[in-house]
């Protein structure tokens, strides 16, 4: 029987890790590490998992240890947040280039400076080109479910690419909500046993990792890495379908959820926990006769350009909400992608971008409502007041 529990997002993900039962978990044990590893360490101490827990002196070492263990054929995980992820930067690229199917939950928090520990998407957006699959979660339930699915996606023989599953700092990570934890046997069966395709310890099939590739093969190496990365798109959908069937879920496990989009004229594209509040605003607008809708983006890497273009095509106007800045770019990172997805699409909706919620700045229904108001006004006036604006910024 599934258990229904009151859990923080961090605990929910720790439960997923317990069911995954990784061979090795390496973690830096103090802040910016979160209570996720604390909960998982409880499972280790209580003998509820078989994992070898390695406490290391930095996140650079945490990712290095995870990488080493995974290369040796062990299913390995770590978790981090904010500046911890930044310190891993170098090793993230190495993990993906070694094609190691590491799964890492990341609590999305702001990067210093100014010093801030609260939620925004700056950390994982900063490593968006590190060759990791990047899946966002709206709530603790999704963070739990995405972590289980991530193992299957990462370890798929055609993919063999690391995955980061993210959850919004504090709002999800430290907030308690009602979470359904699936039956252990069923979850373990879904995740499956790890049978590494290549391992350093297999002396019959010797393997070189970390070789030097100069101008002779570096580029070719990267091109094959990208090819495998792109194959993950189909695998993500397959795993989502199987998950839905296995656990009798009614939720959406595609690249994005299209909420009330069938006849929508105005829509917001959003990531993570804010989707919950946008959903409520859309319902409110619908009850007042406004054809509002929402795209909740779940998979940010690989980015679903074609599918998204199709979903947005018939709209009058749409707004993309970004919880991070891409300095000098055309608005935030999500906006850059969505705008690019619509190039050459006719008729393309009018589009604008809002940066919001940096460093934990609250985002309220009234702010989201103002976005829809701006969209309606822009359609009448045929232009936006500001194509890239801010929400809830003190003037």
């Amino acid at each position: 029987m599934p258990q229904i529990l009151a859990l923080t997002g961090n605990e929910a993900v720790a439960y997923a890790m317990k069911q995954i039962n990784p061979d090795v978990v390496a973690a830096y044990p103090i802040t910016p590490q979160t209570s996720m590893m604390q909960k998982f360490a409880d499972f280790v101490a209580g003998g509820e998992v078989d994992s070898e827990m390695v406490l290391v002196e930095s996140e650079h070492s945490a990712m290095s240890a995870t990488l080493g263990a995974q290369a040796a054929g062990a299913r390995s995980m770590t978790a981090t947040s904010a500046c911890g992820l930044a310190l891993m930067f170098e090793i993230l690229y190495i993990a993906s280039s070694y094609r190691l199917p590491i799964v890492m939950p990341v609590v999305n928090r702001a990067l210093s400076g100014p010093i801030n520990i609260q939620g925004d998407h700056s950390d994982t957006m900063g490593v968006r080109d590190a060759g990791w699959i990047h899946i966002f979660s709206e709530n603790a339930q999704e963070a739990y479910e995405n972590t289980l699915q991530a193992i299957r996606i990462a370890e798929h023989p055609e993919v063999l690419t690391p995955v980061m599953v993210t959850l919004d700092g504090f709002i999800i990570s430290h907030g308690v909500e009602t979470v359904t934890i699936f039956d252990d046997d069923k979850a373990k069966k879904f995740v499956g046993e790890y049978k590494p395709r290549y391992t350093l310890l297999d002396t019959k099939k010797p393997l070189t990792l970390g070789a030097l590739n100069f101008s002779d093969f570096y580029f070719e190496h990267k091109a094959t890495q990208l090819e495998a990365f792109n194959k993950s798109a189909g695998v993500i959908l397959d795993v989502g379908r199987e998950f839905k069937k296995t656990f009798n879920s009614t939720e959406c496990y595609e690249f994005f959820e299209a909420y009330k989009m069938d006849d929508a004229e105005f829509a917001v594209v959003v990531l993570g926990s804010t989707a919950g509040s946008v959903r409520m605003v859309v319902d409110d607008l619908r009850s007042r006769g406004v054809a509002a809708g929402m795209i909740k983006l779940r998979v940010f890497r690989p980015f679903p350009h074609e599918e998204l273009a199709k979903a947005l095509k018939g709209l009058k106007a749409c707004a993309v909400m970004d919880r991070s800045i891409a300095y000098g770019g055309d608005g935030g990172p999500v906006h850059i992608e969505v705008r690019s997805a619509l190039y050459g699409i006719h008729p393309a909706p009018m589009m604008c971008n809002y940066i919001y919620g940096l460093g934990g700045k609250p985002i309220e229904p009234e702010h989201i409502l103002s976005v829809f108001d701006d969209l309606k006004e822009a359609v009448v006036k045929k232009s936006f007041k500001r194509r890239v604006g801010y929400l809830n910024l003190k003037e």
Partner: protein
Amino acid sequence: MIELRFHSRGGQGGVIAGKLLAVAIFKEGKFVQTFPTFGVERRGAPVMTFVRISDRPIRLRTQVYSPDHLVILDPSLIQFYDVTLGLKDGGTILVNTDKDPSELNLPDRYRIVCVNAAHIAIQHKLGSITQPIVNTAVLGALARVTGLVKIESVVAAVKEEVPFKTEANAAAAVDAYNSMRELVLA
């Protein structure tokens, strides 16, 4: 949906209070959500914790701006902040203090209830005499004052979620609950 806001200082256990309340109410079959806004992670920094209670799944992800009830773990916060901001008329304000409601300088359109949770916490050796950890005592009082949750559920939540001084924390909640029984009935 019922919404609560806790005002506390780092180290008093306000965030855990929100979690314990959520777990206790969850045990009674309702949907819950709770999350904190941290300042900086240091002792003494003001912290707010929000709790939502509903019969249906909760999708809203914002801070609580119009709470039904307020819980003040540190009365010194009252002079620095308008803690009552957005509180619904007729809402309950539960304050950890040795003072009387009339001494607190809070608007009288609210139902103001005081509990000496610090005294109860010290009796049970929770925290130190200068920095008692008052969260479990406050929750016991809250159960009595608002009727939002049964004291048995609070005790069950404490036993499940508090790994240290579990019995003392549970006893503090019960003592506070009983102390309010006398006060309210008087």
